[in-house]
């Protein structure tokens, strides 16, 4: 028997596999395919104060071994999430969830975190300072260490739940940003969000995506993500949730060896709705193959 249990800020997960925000909606689409209670947990769709339709379509482009999305944080707003989505989720998921919160200003992040703080179903608040698809917010916060520090500090002041700050890879020095989040009181770091990317349609001679650019994800970005997780995990003293192109149990283990305590799976869910189920089921086999008895033994071992 191998041990797949890991702990994030005192919260023990059955396994480190967590569907990433924006690729799992609020769970029910995937509950149609399998019992999602087998997951470590999942991070729900990025939520803002007001409901958002998001960006114009086309919002999706394909790349070699990946994809670009420019959804633009379409979500029903924090009130609808609390009144509708969380009660619906309770019917299909009996574990706590990660609440992914986005905003356009420090006040908006604070507003949403204050409300979500009261929700028993939420185990961790993941503060998304890194969405590449929203002008005037999101990633703008995540690329300036001063902002990251201030948002983190402001949010920490209004919640007792662990706060994980989700970082953008679209910066010169990821370590500087991670340290700013840690200094602001973050309980953990999630990284990476998508890389800013673009495709052009040769027939129309125009960008494929209506918003021209979008967030690049999928297996193609895994080495970049792994490198950043490694750098950040070695520079901070708080847990790191690693993500970016993770598609297999081997990738999960590699991310953990780089320093991740838990691992999120994003784009893979969209191509294979059973991706997380298959990774979780395969994890003990891969652990045994590499002589790993307990996942906690390999965190940051590289």
């Amino acid at each position, binding site marked *: 028997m191998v041990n797949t249990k890991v702990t994030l800020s005192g919260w023990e997960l059955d396994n480190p596999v967590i569907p990433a925000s924006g690729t799992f*909606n609020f769970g029910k689409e995937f509950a*149609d*395919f399998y019992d999602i209670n087998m997951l470590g947990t999942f991070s729900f*769709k990025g939520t803002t104060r007001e409901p958002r339709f998001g960006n114009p379509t086309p*919002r999706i482009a*394909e*790349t070699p071994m990946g994809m670009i*999305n420019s959804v633009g944080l379409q979500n029903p707003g924090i009130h609808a999430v609390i009144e509708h989505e969380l009660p619906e989720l309770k019917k299909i998921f009996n574990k706590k969830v990660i609440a992914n919160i986005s905003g356009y200003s420090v006040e908006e992040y604070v507003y949403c975190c204050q409300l979500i703080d009261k929700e028993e179903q939420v185990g961790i608040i993941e503060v998304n300072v890194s969405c590449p698809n929203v002008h005037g917010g999101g990633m703008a916060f995540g690329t300036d260490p001063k902002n990251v520090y201030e948002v983190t500090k402001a949010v920490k002041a209004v919640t007792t739940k662990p706060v994980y700050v989700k970082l953008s890879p679209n910066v010169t020095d990821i370590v500087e940003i991670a340290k700013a989040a840690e200094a602001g009181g973050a309980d953990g770091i999630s990284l990476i969000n998508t890389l800013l990317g673009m495709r052009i349609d040769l027939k129309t001679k125009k960008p494929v995506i209506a918003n021209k650019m979008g967030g690049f994800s999928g297996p193609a970005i895994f080495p970049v993500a792994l490198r950043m997780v490694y750098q950040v995990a070695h520079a901070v003293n708080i847990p790191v949730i690693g993500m970016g192109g993770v598609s297999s149990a081997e990738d999960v283990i590699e991310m953990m060896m780089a320093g991740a305590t838990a691992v999120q799976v994003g784009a893979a869910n969209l191509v294979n*709705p059973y991706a997380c189920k298959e990774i979780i089921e395969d994890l003990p086999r891969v652990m045994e193959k590499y002589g790993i008895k307990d996942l906690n033994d390999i965190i940051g071992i590289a």
Partner: protein
Amino acid sequence: MYKRDMYTVLENKKIAKDVFLMVLEGDTKYITAPGQFINILVEGFYLRRPISICDWDDKTITIIYKVVGKGTEAMAEMLPGKKLDILTGLGNGFTAQPGSEKPLVIGGGVGAPPMYGVAKHLVEKGLKPTVILGFTSKDDVFYEEEFKALGCEVYVTTNDGSYGTKGFVTDVIKNLEGYDYFYTCGPLPMLKAVAMGTECSGQLSFEERMGCGFGGCMGCSCKTLTGNKRICTEGPVLLKEEIIW
């Protein structure tokens, strides 16, 4: 409900310019309505290819697709016996309108295949839909005989007049009388022209670039008068009355 399964290519042949018909063998129990689609994983490509269902029975699915890029090019080269990972039963599909006795079934280009399933479904209900198929040119025309074999009256239009009526499907519709409902799928300008050129109500099937095809990513959302809808889940079929043009 939908499901992922493995399917075997039984047949894959060219039926018009850049247009191929593929018959797949496998579990079809998750397909519940004409106009639904399947999402095919093509080796070497990251995202699945969503293709509308033309026809299905207890153990086979027929799709008709156009080669528009490298993914569909790879599909066109697949030989019988090839196994494919496919999600089936996706989307809402068309619903036979209660009370409609003289429906129009209108398809444009590769929007025609799902309309075959609709026509067949209506014929099984004892109706005799009038079918209008629009294509660019004679080389693009397909499935005219198959629609006729259902017992439908079939009109074909080509933009250049090289086959059938010269012009667009709306050039046929304007001379028709007595129809009380329509079902359609095709390019966006055609859908709009059909909606504007008809007084009756109808159902229209839309296309959008998709991430997952099952509602997980919000990649294919559109605004309607009845709220935001995902083309892959609450669509692809929308009611004429709810569409914001």
